[in-house]
């Protein structure tokens, strides 16, 4: 808690002092965070090995996935350490042809989930949900060529909805959230809130 308070106050103070070396203190602290996080990865890998190792040793349900995970983890790390990570290396091959497509597969799910979530959100059960449905319908119609073809004002209506009510709503949330961030930071710095450390 003392470390949090000192680090926070120092960064806050030096934010207002523009001369070197004070203006670079934030960068220095950021580098420290990177170094600490790099060492913390050992804890993460340790947790992965422990949890999945136990699963394999007990032959728990789905232990085969744990084998794949650990083999993938150590094989990739070893190939990277021994063969390097340059373009054209075996590590690069794994990255391009295993890692990237798998990530893209997960990301592509988003298209289907947007459709299913929108279907539920747009059920006009209440007056507010009806407003949401009407505005969403107008924005969608205004953003596709057929909307312009039906009535040339649809794109303008869509832009107005996005530029005014939508922007205003977003700003209101952002102002509230920003004040919340400042207030929470002050609570952490003054030691009023210790709950993130497990305390009251």
């Amino acid at each position: 808690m003392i470390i949090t308070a000192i680090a926070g106050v120092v960064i806050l103070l030096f934010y207002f002092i523009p001369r070197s070396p004070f203006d670079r203190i934030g960068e220095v602290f950021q580098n420290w965070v990177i170094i600490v996080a790099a060492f913390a990865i050992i804890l993460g890998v340790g947790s992965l090995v422990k949890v999945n190792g136990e699963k394999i040793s007990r032959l728990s349900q789905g232990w085969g996935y744990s084998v794949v995970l650990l083999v993938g983890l150590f094989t990739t790390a070893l190939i990277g350490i021994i063969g390097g990570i340059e373009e054209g290396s075996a590590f690069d091959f794994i990255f391009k042809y295993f890692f990237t497509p798998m990530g893209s597969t997960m990301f592509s799910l988003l298209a289907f989930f947007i459709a299913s979530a929108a279907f539920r959100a747009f059920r006009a059960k209440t007056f507010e949900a009806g407003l949401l449905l009407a505005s969403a319908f107008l924005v969608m119609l205004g953003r596709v060529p057929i909307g312009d073809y039906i009535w040339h004002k649809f794109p303008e209506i869509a832009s107005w909805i996005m530029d005014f009510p939508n922007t205003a709503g977003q700003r209101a949330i952002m102002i509230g959230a920003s004040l919340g961030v400042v207030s929470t930071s002050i609570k952490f710095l003054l030691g009023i809130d210790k709950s993130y450390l497990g305390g009251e």
Partner: protein
Amino acid sequence: MRYFKLILIIILVYLLGISGWARNLDDINLINLPGNGKINSQYFSPEVEVPSPSIVSIYLNDNLIETRKAFTEKLVFPQMKLKLGKNSIKITVKTAEKQYEKYFTIKREAWFNTERTNMLVAIILLVLLIVYFIFTAQKGKVYYIRKIAGLAALDDAVGRATEMGKAVLYVPGSQDMDDIQTLAGLSILGHVAEKTAEYDTPIMVPTARSLVMSTAQEVVKEAYLKAGRPDAYKSENVRYLTDDQFGYVAGVDGIMVRERTAANFYMGSFYAESLILAETGHSTGAIQIAGTAMSAQLPFFVAACDYTLIGEELFAASAYLSKEPLQVGSLKGQDMGKLFFLIAIIIGVILETFGIKSFTEWFIIK
């Protein structure tokens, strides 16, 4: 009353919408340099915001230093060392339609950045308000906190998982400990973990960062200790999955589908993974409570979750759940800060309407 609220919301939406905070790429925000062109340090990394695609050139004392093609909106040039009081910098931005030029002079190093005075005043004002309300709360004054449905439902969600004999899933966001939303998420984790300890329900906390895992383990351990059930704490339930965004999503989705968790909590900072997590959770029939200050992800959570803590509610959770005078006082101070900015926005809109810009300009962060 219902229509009065609606009219009030429409007026507020209008006021916020027309307030003069819009970005105007044609003018001063075209080139966004730290200190609005006044460089107070020997070291300088120009950051240029341009309408893409553009060609950006940077000159030092009329000598061309570098020319780059910008395909993205933000372009960061490498750091350069300057001799103070002797240099001038020129930046040109060429687009297909137009060419912009801007000159910057270099000022002497100062002990206080006067361009951040507004920020300092805002911080001091907010700190004073918070300290004042903490002080009055400590003296015994009771402040009212409105009911936050998402936080009121936390205990019910854990209770439901207990009745169903299933585990609770808690996702503290996908970002690291340097994101304050992660800290707010961990604060709520303490409360949820205490409840799961009381009800003897397992809690699973998969994390995307090692540091978050270590902290979450401490928070959950402490909560189990507080509930008088340290023996029930299992460190392997608070585990690290991967730093990779979609690898993490795949891991958490796998836990939801395999374990059929009955209550899912998403509290922290989220990006594109928010809807994938929430929709998978919805498909498994879990009760879901989310909380984030990422405005782009809020609609997804609102659509897919039963309850959503919107922006500031995530940060108010700690005070709401603990009901401690110190915390409640700070929340009241924050609300007063909000009132101050609300009044400032209304005054700003009125003055801008009459063409008086000095008031709104004072609030612009440089």
